């Protein structure tokens, strides 16, 4: 069984040493940005000695990591390093794969996500997820796709229309689709579909949003829009972004975590990871020496 179904190894080795200077410049620019305003307290996630397996294969080998509230944390690392797997442990999607299991402790504001009493459905309502490939429901309209998050999780409709509008506005898609809410969701462009999926996720009003390479299937313009959206969303949510694209990590993340062969190598403020990493392997990776 393969661990990360995406991308060839060559994809992640795109940034040469020339690019790393630009990266550093970008990172320091990022550091000067004023701290984002907080509209709603996100929640903190704590990973302690998390290990994840596919059958006998250990994909994540004991990771300790904190995701701070109202911050964007980027997960970087070469293909197959376990970053997607680790993230999928946080909303317990990892265990949906036959033969897969996870060990260790993951808490959200102190509550254990893997507690014996915990309903996995409630975990996924608290921890939303956006996938690599936009995956709107093909049988549903734009409106229903956003409402699906609410209906599927069994919440009462109530002010469904308001909530759909608020979610679409939140995902920066409202102005583009407000006149065709009853058209099929799959009729939108790739970037719009991905923002529709983000709208669908925030319609459930989670505490945390996990994004598993949300822009890898999008063109640069659509990527920019999603990145701007991520920057806005952190006012209300704790956000984790898995990415192959180091420039993207530099652009959107407050903190960046570097993983290698299932282990957490280094976690630090983003500008430090890209300018002054403490681990040699991190430096080699961010300067494009391997990966």
């Amino acid at each position: 069984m393969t661990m990360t179904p995406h991308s060839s190894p060559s994809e992640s080795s795109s940034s040469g040493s020339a690019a790393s200077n630009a990266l550093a410049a970008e990172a320091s620019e990022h550091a000067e940005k004023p701290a984002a305003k907080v509209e709603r307290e996100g929640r903190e996630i704590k990973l302690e000695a998390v290990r994840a397996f596919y059958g006998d294969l250990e994909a994540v080998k004991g990771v300790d990591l904190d995701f701070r509230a109202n911050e964007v944390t980027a997960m970087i690392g070469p293909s197959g390093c376990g970053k997607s797997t680790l993230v999928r442990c946080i909303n317990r999607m990892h265990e949906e794969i036959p033969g897969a299991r996870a060990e260790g402790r993951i808490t959200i504001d102190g509550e254990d996500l893997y507690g014996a009493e915990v309903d996995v459905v409630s975990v996924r309502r608290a921890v939303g997820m956006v996938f690599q490939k936009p995956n709107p429901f093909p049988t549903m309209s734009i409106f229903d796709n956003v409402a699906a998050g609410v209906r599927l999780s069994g919440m009462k409709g109530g002010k469904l229309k308001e909530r759909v509008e608020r979610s679409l506005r939140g995902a920066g898609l409202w102005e583009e689709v407000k006149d065709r809410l009853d058209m099929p969701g799959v009729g939108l462009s790739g970037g719009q579909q991905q923002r529709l999926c983000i709208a669908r996720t925030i319609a459930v009003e989670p505490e945390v949003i996990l994004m598993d390479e949300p822009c890898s299937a999008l063109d640069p313009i659509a990527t920019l829009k999603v990145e701007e959206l991520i920057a806005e969303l952190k006012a209300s949510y704790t956000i984790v972004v898995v990415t192959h694209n180091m420039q993207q990590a530099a652009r959107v993340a407050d903190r960046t975590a570097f993983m290698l062969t299932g282990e957490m190598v280094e976690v630090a403020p983003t500008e430090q990871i890209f300018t002054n990493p403490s681990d040699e392997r991190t430096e080699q990776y961010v300067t494009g020496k391997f990966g």
Partner: protein
Amino acid sequence: MSALSAVSPRRRRTDQAARAALGAGAAIALVPLVLVIFYLMKKGLPAWSWHFFTSDPTGSFLGDAGGIRSAIVGTLVLVAVAAAMSIPAGVGVALYLVEYGKAKRFAGLIRYLVDVMTGVPSIVFGLFVYTVLVITSIGGGFAAWKGSLALALLMLPVVTRSAEVVLNLVPDSLREAALALGAPRWRVIFRVVLPSALPGLVTGSLLAVARAAGETAPLLFTAFAVFGLSVDPSQEINSLPVQIFNDARQPRDVIVTRAWGAALTLVLLILITTVVARLATRRSRIA
């Protein structure tokens, strides 16, 4: 000498011979089909009339033989009840196999049994129902619903196998998306998986219906046959295949002609079902 040369005469001849052989093969395969349709039209069309479709067989040896109204209605009732029994069960089994069973050993056993069931001759299902339900006089002797049950057993593996294929075509990314939104699995199945697969499920079910509609053997000793019009599943009921079977053995020309007319009607009904099934496939967004 030029690097390019003309096609050699030998290769040209071989090519022509091979094309001719394949074309002849295709033509030979078409002959019986064309003949069947030709004879059906030639012998069946003269039997068609308003009277033919609006009257029941009289059963009298002289005078008006009557039409096939009760047979058409009976076939529709039989097949509808059979579909109501087999489609929910078949789709349910397929859902278990795709959503829960997956690669488990028990699921493999079910798949194997379904395959075996596909190969069971239809008369065996008739015999089974006859032995278990008719001889024992459970709910009376012959009854339409017992015929439907025999047909349902026949349809079940077809429905199950086609539904399994279609459900497997629903991308896992949709299931993941729904699960990640915090949907319980049953709601994922009813709100996302089944609607996405619906056109394919309709197609598979209709093809099973089309197959069952033409079956004679299971009905002979379960639903039996009466002349009069009946829509009551607990009573004996007429049907097109059994009517054809009985009429074709009669000495009177007018009744044999009625068999041809009924056969043409049956083929037309099955053709309509198949066309509807095709239209449903065209609506599919996933395959």
